[in-house]
């Protein structure tokens, strides 16, 4: 390995760490009320469902029709996951649960995206 190689590896590592750390830091400095986060489900470019994710919400499943056929999405409290999918590689299913705003599951063969959006705008701010 040359010095250039090591420099490149370090640069990639640093970029990756920053890209992982920055959104976390940002959300810990400016916390959003995750109790009112919602999951936006898009299929083939259109928003098909919006689900409110809250602790009080129980377990439920819903079926979304993607390009590769129907996929089952499961919601449990604040978490959401792709439970079953008709796509060949099942990458979306293996990803498991997501729960933080900004997290997303993308199923490319099925053209389905599940993305957790931040809380609704604040009702009021007092200074």
């Amino acid at each position, binding site marked *: *390995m040359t010095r250039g190689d090591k420099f490149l590896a370090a640069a990639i590592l640093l970029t990756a760490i920053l890209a992982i750390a920055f959104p976390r830091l940002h959300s810990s400095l400016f916390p959003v009320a995750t109790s009112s986060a919602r999951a936006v489900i898009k299929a083939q470019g259109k928003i098909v469902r919006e689900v409110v994710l809250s602790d009080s919400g129980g377990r439920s499943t819903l079926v979304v029709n993607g390009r590769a056929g129907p996929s089952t999405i499961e919601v449990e409290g604040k978490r959401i996951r792709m439970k079953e999918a008709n796509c060949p*590689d099942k990458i*979306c299913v*293996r990803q498991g649960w997501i729960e933080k705003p900004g997290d997303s599951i993308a199923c490319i*063969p099925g053209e389905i*995206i599940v993305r957790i959006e931040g809380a609704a705008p604040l009702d009021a701010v007092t200074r």
Partner: protein
Amino acid sequence: MEMKRIFSTRRLVFLSILVALGAVLHVVEGMFPIPLPLPGVKLGLANIVTLFAICLYGLRGGVAVATARVLLGSLIGGIFLSPGFLLALSGAILSTLVMAWLFKHTSCFSVIGISMAGAVTHNMGQLLAASLILRSSAVFYYLPVLLLAAIPTGLITGYILRSLLDRLEKTGQLRIMKME
């Protein structure tokens, strides 16, 4: 009238062997996903063949091997013209262009560094294609994970190519392959 040839017959033969090798690696690797909970992380063994073609015959060799390999590999794997094929194609072409540029115009990287750069740009090309197919930027959420994964995978494929080049150099076969 003689047609202007891009590659000599000798080079064409070696390129064809590389395409066959690349297609097999491409298909076999697709059959065995890495048992990690990471979406779409692969070792990128077919990338070794593309970079080897670049080392031998430059940009043209690399592009020829990369595109032919993806076409052939996806025909064998039965994913021709599917989203997975488009992802593979855009990743392969973008990484080939970047690797060939680095190989020709920089001297500070060895094949290991170039291989790492290829792994990173391959992932970026795939995400770019995925975001166009899905009409959403949500897939870039995977970028940090794929960047991290590109370091070990690029290192491993780079070291394999390094030892391959060393062996071929020692036996003099590299010189034979590079001849017109």
